[in-house]
């Protein structure tokens, strides 16, 4: 659990982070979102003490981070930045093994861990271990960057615009992969982005920042239904709101008994996807299938609309 208590930072006369507090639960993803210059990155960098706060403190599992030596603290916190900062003179395997090597793991243990991570990130070890970063595509570099951050099994992962330099097609896939891996490992993540879609896609909770202040910290649905300030409302996009809400709910919640004609949709898909499919196919309803493909009910346009209206009220 990460507790951020009254963190503040100023550079000269400019306040960059102004009295920000929030708590991230074990295994949760907290997304800090806001316009550029809102203080998101500085806030993130105060968690691993790359930036020293002027006031306030950060507790990780109840322990004040200032009681741990800086470098030791950072060995325990994964860190991924935009552009990844991979070491160009080191192979993929050496890059991923950076923190374990700093921690003095023996070679065999490092090699085993590197292979495990390459497998996890769908990078064939025999093909990728000895490559240099410049020989990788953007998406592969991104995966190596995250694998490197996870190498020493940190309980906390900090990510600063980790998908910022990927093109939109790869970005969606990379976000899904991150979610899968995060659910499997149970890592707590604090992620900074300016992309609202990314925030809603990934966040268990979303922190909205503007001009150094934290405006609202809430679950995505609450952010939509009860925006704390006009700025939050504007940022989440008034017109986009119902669609965003639909993207937070899965088919399971609006499923009706019965059957329908057409290609079935999987029960874990979002209502937004289901509605999109219904509109595109021009159908009033679609059959719903579980993970094994067996039909378990149907989803209709009316049902989705009703659900959308209901959650707004």
């Amino acid at each position: 659990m990460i507790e951020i208590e009254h963190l503040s930072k100023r550079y000269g006369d400019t306040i960059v982070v102004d009295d920000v507090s929030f708590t991230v639960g074990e295994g949760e993803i907290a997304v800090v979102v806001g316009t550029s210059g809102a203080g998101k990155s500085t806030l993130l960098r105060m968690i691993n003490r790359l930036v020293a706060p002027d006031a306030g403190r950060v507790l990780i599992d109840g322990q004040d981070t200032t009681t741990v030596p800086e470098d030791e603290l950072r060995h325990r916190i994964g860190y991924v930045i935009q552009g990844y900062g991979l070491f160009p003179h080191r192979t993929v395997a050496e890059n991923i093994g950076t923190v374990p090597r700093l921690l003095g793991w023996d070679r065999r243990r490092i090699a085993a861990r590197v292979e495990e991570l390459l497998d996890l990130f769908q990078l064939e070890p025999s093909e990728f271990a000895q490559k240099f970063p410049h020989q990788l595509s953007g998406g592969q570099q991104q995966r190596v960057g995250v694998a490197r951050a996870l190498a020493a099994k940190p309980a906390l992962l900090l990510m600063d615009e980790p998908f910022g330099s990927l093109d939109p097609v790869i970005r969606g896939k990379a976000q899904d992969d991150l979610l899968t891996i995060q659910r499997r490992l149970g890592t707590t993540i604090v992620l900074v982005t300016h992309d609202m879609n990314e925030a809603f896609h990934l966040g268990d909770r979303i922190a909205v920042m503007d001009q150094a202040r934290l405006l609202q910290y809430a679950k995505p649905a609450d952010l939509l239904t009860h925006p704390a300030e006009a700025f939050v409302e504007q940022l989440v996009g008034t017109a986009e709101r119902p669609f965003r809400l639909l993207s937070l709910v899965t088919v399971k919640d609006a499923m009706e008994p019965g059957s329908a004609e057409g290609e079935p949709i999987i029960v874990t898909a979002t209502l937004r996807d289901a509605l999109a499919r219904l509109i595109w196919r021009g159908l009033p309803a679609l059959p719903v299938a579980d993970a094994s493909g067996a039909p378990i009910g149907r989803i209709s346009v009316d049902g989705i609309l009703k659900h959308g209206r209901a959650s707004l009220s």
Partner: protein
Amino acid sequence: MSARAVILRIAALLLLVAFVTAPQLFAFAFAPLTANNAPAIYNQGSLLALTLSHLRIVVLATLASTILAVALGIFVTRPAGREFLPLSRSLVNIGQTFPPIAVLAIAVPLVGFGEKPTFIALFLYGLLPIFENTLAGLTEVSPRTLDAARGMGMNARQRLWQVELPLALPVILAGIRLSVIISLGTATIGSTVAAKGLGEVIIAGLQSNNVAFILQGGLVVALLAVLIHDGLGLAERAAARRLGRPLDEIA
């Protein structure tokens, strides 16, 4: 390097070795350049011994310049040394603006004749390229890479040895190469103050108006310079390859 270029280098190396070990074999080529029955091949000492002592002083002086220049380059790029950057720059620049001959003139009364004044002149002259390249190499390291290194918990020393210096190495090596090549040529004037070196051959030629001698001294220095230049170039490329950079990025 193409196969032709490699063969050319090997041929040059063989020619150099053959010439300094058995110069008499080449007498036929130099005889037409002499007049009044003057000797065609330098006969006041062993060419091999002169070549070796020439190389020795160049290597020693460059080694000393490298140690000081790289150490200084590292120091002024650390937070603690940043304010010394302008001062170090001017000092090193002064080393370069003094003509080596002037340094010799000043150094001889202080340290006497022989290798010492030559060493001082070469040492001062060699500092600038290495220092500037060390600076360039270290400041070119991407801030993102350094941020990532810091964020992963590398301390200042680990960042220097594991990230900054390996990344700057090809550029630093280029500076050393430049410095060695300058020194190889400059070392010939050391013979004016009685340092053993290939300058002796050239000076003997000038004094006795013997073009063959001048040409021999110049030829050996030139061959050395070409071969060492290429050899160090190979080392740079090997270092750059370890960086995973495409080879053509390093000129």
